[in-house]
């Protein structure tokens, strides 16, 4: 379904006028589209459905999408929102300014009206909200009445709203109607027809009534993939041959388990919901010991319960991948909000000394490939590997042209079948040049496989012998550590290669720092240094990032925590001290405007 040409033309003219009056806007005709749509309302009202559907329409239409969510720890009520940014250019962070607000509750109007852009519009249903707004930026759309009239059920009010947003943007209905068809395939023709009519009703209404709508969509392109951070970790695990995932549900880690469970049948994976996180990590270690790739995941509180198990993985040299999805603490903290305050916890937790690897992906693509690398390293060196994510990355969706699956690694380092049974003898913890003893699958040969949480001899039996104690510690720690360190990739540089100003971040702040660099690079010699492979700190051989920092005039470490945990790590491990620190610890992610403002204030 196409919009009348005249409307597109009006939209375009109005855009150009706006654009020329506002130098901050990019007026390139192909790529000018960059709109933020915010769907706000109570939990249970269908915010997620509208947001997910719009995102899918945009990504399938070939636009770049970034979405993020803000929700409360409740199933009904409260005030939640889902924000979708759609653009002709790659986008990777939320904006403060909103172009279209879909207000499903009154609080949405109250909170977000000040954030409207010059062309911004608020759509709402006055009969549902029991209030009427007369301002030019308000458009009253009878979502419920249209749903009843055209779909036959008020449930379809969300479909009406989705259609209306597309109408406002000047995007046709073909893609949406296709999605409706897929979604309701099992429910039958009638439901498909009803939903399609509801979508068309919303679309028509917006096209006819939104006289002030000055939005204009970019040219459609090839469909893009749309993926959220936690789904990417789950997909990464599945694509790495993970066969066992045990965990206890905890926001924001649960969605990793849910994704893996959704693939259990197809890939032959056992997903076990453990009675607690202690059981979860110990089950995963049992499965790994028995010969399959295993993973667990939790948030800070649950990971706290896993801490003894983490050192068990280290002592028994049992491969294990752990996802630690951060949320603000201490204790229960803000269960559904975001923070990067568990880096120290991941770095230093557990008793004793042993090697560990910590990754902190900045994008879903990194999350996918770093999960794969986590399995590769954990199997290769028989160590625990942690993947740090957070609520923001977990729930954010990004578009990509695709993932290059040829980059996936799958090496089976286990001794199985013939390879094991043909050995003359076997000692699970035999001393080797590399410190790594091939790990055998118990039962595949006459040799027994023995391991112990106590200090042990080469066979795996407990010992208190002085020489063995030293040699085993050296095997686990000093022999493996340099090799592991050499596997770590240096931070990514974005922007000017000889920058005066360097913005440094790690994990999920990647996108917003990148966009901040874009925003400031017209007037400043600026770059971003982003760390996704955090520990062991990558060596400077491949890329002398410490030299780059030392040569810059201003270096700013940006973290979503109060105590600059990464800056401290860099000082401890590399002796480097940042000039400036930016911290945010209110449980909310940075928007582009907010971070740009912070940086401008610092560098003047």
């Amino acid at each position, binding site marked *: 379904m196409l919009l009348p040409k005249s409307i597109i033309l009006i939209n375009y003219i109005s855009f150009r006028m706006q654009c020329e009056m506002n130098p901050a806007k990019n007026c390139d005709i192909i790529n000018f589209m960059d709109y933020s749509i915010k769907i706000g309302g109570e939990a249970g009202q269908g915010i997620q459905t509208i947001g997910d559907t719009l995102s899918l329409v945009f990504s399938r239409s070939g636009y770049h999408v970034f979405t993020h969510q803000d929700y409360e720890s409740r199933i009904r009520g409260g005030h939640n929102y889902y924000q979708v940014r759609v653009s002709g250019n790659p986008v990777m962070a939320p904006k403060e300014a909103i172009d279209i607000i879909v207000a499903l509750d009154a609080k949405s109007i109250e909170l977000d009206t000040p954030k409207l852009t010059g062309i911004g519009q608020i759509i709402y249903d006055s009969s549902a909200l029991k209030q009427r707004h007369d301002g030019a930026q308000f458009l009253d759309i009878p979502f419920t009445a249209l749903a009843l009239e055209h779909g036959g059920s008020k449930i379809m009010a969300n479909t009406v709203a989705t259609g209306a947003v597309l109408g406002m943007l000047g995007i046709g209905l073909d893609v949406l109607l296709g999605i409706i068809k897929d979604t309701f395939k099992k429910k039958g023709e009638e439901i498909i027809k009803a939903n399609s009519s509801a979508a068309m009703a919303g679309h028509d209404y917006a096209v006819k009534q939104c006289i002030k709508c000055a939005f204009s969509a970019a040219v459609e392109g090839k469909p*893009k*993939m*749309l*993926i959220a951070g936690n*789904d990417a970790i789950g*997909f990464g695990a599945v*694509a790495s*041959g993970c*066969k*066992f995932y*045990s965990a206890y549900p905890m926001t924001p880690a649960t969605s990793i388990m849910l994704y893996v469970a959704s*693939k*259990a*049948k*197809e*890939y*032959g994976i*056992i997903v*076990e919901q*453990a*009675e*607690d996180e*202690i*059981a*979860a990590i*110990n*089950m995963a*270690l*049992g*499965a*790994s*010991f*028995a*010969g*399959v*790739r*295993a993973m667990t995941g939790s948030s800070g509180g649950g990971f706290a319960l896993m801490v*003894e*198990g983490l050192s*068990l993985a280290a002592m*028994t040299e049992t491969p294990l991948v752990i996802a630690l999805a951060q949320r603000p603490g201490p204790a229960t903290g803000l269960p559904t909000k975001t923070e990067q305050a568990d880096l120290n916890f991941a770095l230093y937790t557990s008793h004793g000394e042993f090697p560990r690897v910590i990754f902190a992906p900045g994008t879903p693509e990194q999350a996918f490939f770093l999960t794969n690398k986590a399995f590769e390293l954990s199997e290769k060196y028989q160590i625990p590997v942690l993947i740090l994510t957070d609520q923001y990355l977990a729930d954010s969706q990004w578009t990509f042209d*695709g*993932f290059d*699956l040829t980059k*996936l690694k*799958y090496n089976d380092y286990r001794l199985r079948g013939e390879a094991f049974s043909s050995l003359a003898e076997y000692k699970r913890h035999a001393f080797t040049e590399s410190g790594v003893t091939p790990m055998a*699958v*118990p*039962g595949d*040969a*006459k*040799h*027994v*496989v*023995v*391991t*112990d*949480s106590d200090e042990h001899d080469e066979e*795996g*039996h407990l010992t208190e012998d002085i020489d063995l104690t030293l040699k085993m510690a050296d095997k686990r720690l000093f022999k493996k550590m340099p090799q592991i360190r050499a596997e770590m990739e240096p931070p990514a540089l974005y922007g000017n290669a000889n920058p005066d100003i360097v913005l440094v971040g790690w994990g999920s702040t990647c996108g917003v720092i990148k966009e901040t660099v874009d925003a400031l690079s017209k007037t400043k010699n600026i770059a971003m240094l982003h760390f996704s492979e955090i520990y062991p700190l990558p060596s400077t051989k491949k890329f002398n990032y410490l030299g780059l920092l030392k040569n810059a005039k201003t270096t700013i470490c940006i973290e979503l925590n109060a105590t600059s945990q990464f800056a401290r790590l860099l000082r401890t491990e590399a002796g480097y001290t940042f000039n400036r620190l930016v911290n945010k610890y209110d449980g909310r992610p940075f928007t582009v405007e907010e971070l740009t403002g912070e940086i401008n204030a610092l560098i003047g």
Partner: protein
Amino acid sequence: MPSLDDFSGLKPAWCPGCGNFGILKTFKDAAVELGLEPHQFTIVSGIGQAAKFPHYLKCNTFNGLHGRSLPVATGITLANHSMLVIDVAGDGDCYGEGGNHLMHTIRRNVNIKLFVHDNQIYGLTKGQASPTSMEGMVTKNQPFGVLSEQFNPMAFAVALDCSFVARGFAGDQEHLKMLIKEAVNHKGFTLVDILQPCVSFNKVNTYEWYRQRVYKLGADYNSENRIAAFEKALEWGDKIPIGIIYRNNRLDFEERIPVIKDEPLVRQPFDISKVEKTLKEFY
């Protein structure tokens, strides 16, 4: 056929006269009679005097953390259900630190053979009360005597419809051997609580104390009647029943997981070619 020599391990570091010696010898005898070879089973244990058990024979071994042997055993069983998985724990290990895991492993009915060396005291940490210490028992750490009620593992297990519940006595090795063999041959989770005198720290529940009280359940006892079993499980004091208190034919956990219907998980190869199709689902 395996012989006793196949199972020789490290020299035990238990106190002379410890009830664990009798259990170890009986276990080896049972393994030989069952025709088990060392590589055909895995013993998982936690921490405590009992948990050192697998080091003193020869078999696949995962000696993990205090209280956490059952989750490890669960992971091993789910990854490879063709492997016989045995869990050896103590009363503090399994009924104290690991109580939550016991409850849920019984619920799942994972095919694990659990043997609890129950000496009603903490041996490794030198004589504090355990969950099965009797009320009133005075220790250095319980100077006013044990105030909490004694944990009854038999009644607990019957209440949870555990698929096999038995009690043995370290001082009656022939009877214990029968129980070990019955447990190994039973399909589903089995709990065998083994009364085991601690000669160093438990001056109440001695060999003599147990000998005066234990009696074997006779042929007339129906171990499949859950209500009768619960009554039997409550017996403690002047008379303590040993034998199979309760058993049922619940399906075990592994049988109910479709993914491992045909082949243990560990023998299922990973087919990386499927990933491409999965990637398309994100478009």
